């Protein structure tokens, strides 16, 4: 058994602790903020895209809705008639949210698809539908059908697994459950892109987190509208995953 002088040990550790505290205080006092660090912080917070956007315009939004609904018409062509009413109600609610978001962040509504703009509405409805169907089929191919099962799983499994597990526990076929869940994720992305093409969605997400924006605007309200939109898109994608 060792004989230990606890008092002495305590004194020594107290001296050591004080020395460390003094050194820390000295370092804190003399700490100069690195200029590069400061600049990098400022650059991180700077809003470079702030002047790229044009203000919201009601008439442009009307044109956008007309075209977006034609995309939906194509996606919903195989929808079971029993869900018809629910889906259309949900779609109306979703586009109310989309309008609210565009108005809130005050950016010009964009239309999804390369070379697609409101002027195509001057053509016959068949021509417009055909053109939009080509765009949508191409998007579905690139994001889902042209991918191998492995590629799909790799790309979407993280997001798709929770829903797939739930479906499997409800005694659905595992393979079908996973495919359906992946399709749901794919459609969530597509529908969000249709509503907010280009960098618009990134802009919306940026503003929900921007410190400067939150100082002046009702950021919490924007967050709520965006969350509501995401829920609506999630529900819509579940209906659509069964149709495409």
């Amino acid at each position, binding site marked *: 058994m060792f004989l230990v002088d606890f008092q002495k040990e305590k004194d020594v550790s107290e001296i050591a602790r004080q020395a460390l505290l003094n050194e820390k205080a000295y370092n804190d006092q003399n700490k100069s903020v690195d200029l590069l660090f400061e600049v990098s912080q400022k650059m991180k917070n700077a*809003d470079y*895209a*702030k*002047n790229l*956007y*044009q*203000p*919201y315009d009601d008439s442009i939004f009307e044109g956008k809705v007309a075209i977006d609904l034609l995309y939906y018409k194509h996606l919903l062509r195989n929808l079971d008639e029993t869900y018809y009413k629910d889906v259309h109600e949900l779609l109306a609610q979703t586009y109310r949210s989309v309008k609210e978001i565009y108005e*809130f*962040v*005050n*950016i010009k509504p964009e239309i999804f698809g390369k070379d697609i703009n409101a002027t195509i509405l001057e053509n016959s409805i068949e021509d417009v539908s055909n053109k939009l169907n080509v765009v949508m089929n191409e998007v579905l191919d690139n994001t889902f059908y042209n991918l191998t099962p492995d590629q799909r799983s790799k790309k979407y499994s993280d997001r798709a697994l929770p829903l797939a597990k739930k479906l499997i526990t409800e005694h659905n076929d595992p393979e079908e459950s996973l495919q359906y869940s992946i399709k749901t994720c794919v459609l969530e992305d597509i529908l969000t892109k249709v509503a907010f093409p280009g960098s618009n969605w990134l802009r919306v997400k940026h503003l929900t987190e921007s410190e*400067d*924006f939150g*100082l*002046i*605007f*009702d950021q919490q*309200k*924007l967050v709520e509208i965006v969350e509501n939109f995401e829920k609506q898109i999630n529900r819509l994608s579940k209906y659509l995953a069964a149709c495409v």
Partner: protein
Amino acid sequence: MSAIKKYYEDKVVPQLQDKQKETQIYTELAKMVSAAYTSNMASDESFCFKFNIPLTGVNNFYKILNLNPVEVGLNFKADWGNILTAMHKDSYYQILLLLVYHGIIQKKDAFAKNALMVLMLKIWNGRKSHFFKFCDKRVMKYVIGHMLTNRHHSSKFENPVTLLKDHFVPTILEKYGPEIKNDPAKLKRLFEQTFARVVQIFAQNKRTNLQTGKPEAQGGLLPLYMKARAEGLYISPPNVRTGEDEERPGFEEYATTHNRDEIVSKTTDFIVMNQISYPASLISDINRKTNVSAKIIEQILAALHNHSYFDIIQNLIILILSRCNITSVGDICKAEFSANIQKNVISSKNNDEANKIQRLIDVLLTKIFDDKLQIKFDNYSVVHKIKIRNVIIFGLEHNLFRVNCRGN
């Protein structure tokens, strides 16, 4: 002892011994003169010009000095006698005469000059409206440029403000100052002579027309103007179209400017001289329309009520009324006023006036953001600045309605 002198010594001097109050009044007077000068220099209405009268600002002198307008009026009456016109009894003139007296007694030349200048603004407007109910600036320009002889004061000065400030104010004070120093009751003489000199600009040497039996002025701007008008003589300004919906100024337009002047003057004075609380319903309505947080809306609107923003607010109101084609108070009190603002101010783009409104609001917001919110207004994107600007426009709309339709 003169009642005015006694009242001045008992009530006014103790207040003005407080140097802060004296400086405040001097600064306000200087601002009023400066605003009159700037607006007249910017205008091309020649001698048709009407000033924005700082009624609220002048009225506020009573508050600053803790004076009762009724008491002041009684003392003037005691010195000046019973037979007085509405002008003699006007509290606007009386407080300014007291300040002129203060400037003369204390040998504060600039103080007396500014007070007399502000007093003359109202006399000018009154006489101008009396002699020229509808004043065509094109005809007036012809009169000034081609019909006046060198003897006429108007020929030596470019516009009313320089005539009043550089000629009438110093000569009147030089002539009547010494006798007022001895007897303040002589303020009445100064006041009446001021009135008479302004009248002479417009009409003098009245004689009865033997054909009509009515007195007619032989000299001054009025007979020359009537002659030029009868002969169809005028100088047409270069007609440069700069805005999308600018039209050639019509004759009736000049009638509306008088109403607008009053609305602008009353509303601006009210905004910069008063701190008001905005109703919660308005704040929530602006919040709904702009998505700017209610707390920030309250701070921005509260910050508007500051005299240092006088010029900006005045110009904004002038531009808003012009964009909305407001010709009378009735137009502001109509239910369509809001829709009018929405269409012609908020949604209007790419025209001179809308661009000016935007620039002025940006200057105002930059100051408010720096001073009150400690945030850089320039941190915000173009599209967000639009929303923040609308807070100011809605605030001004509310004040226009409040002042002109609800009487504050």
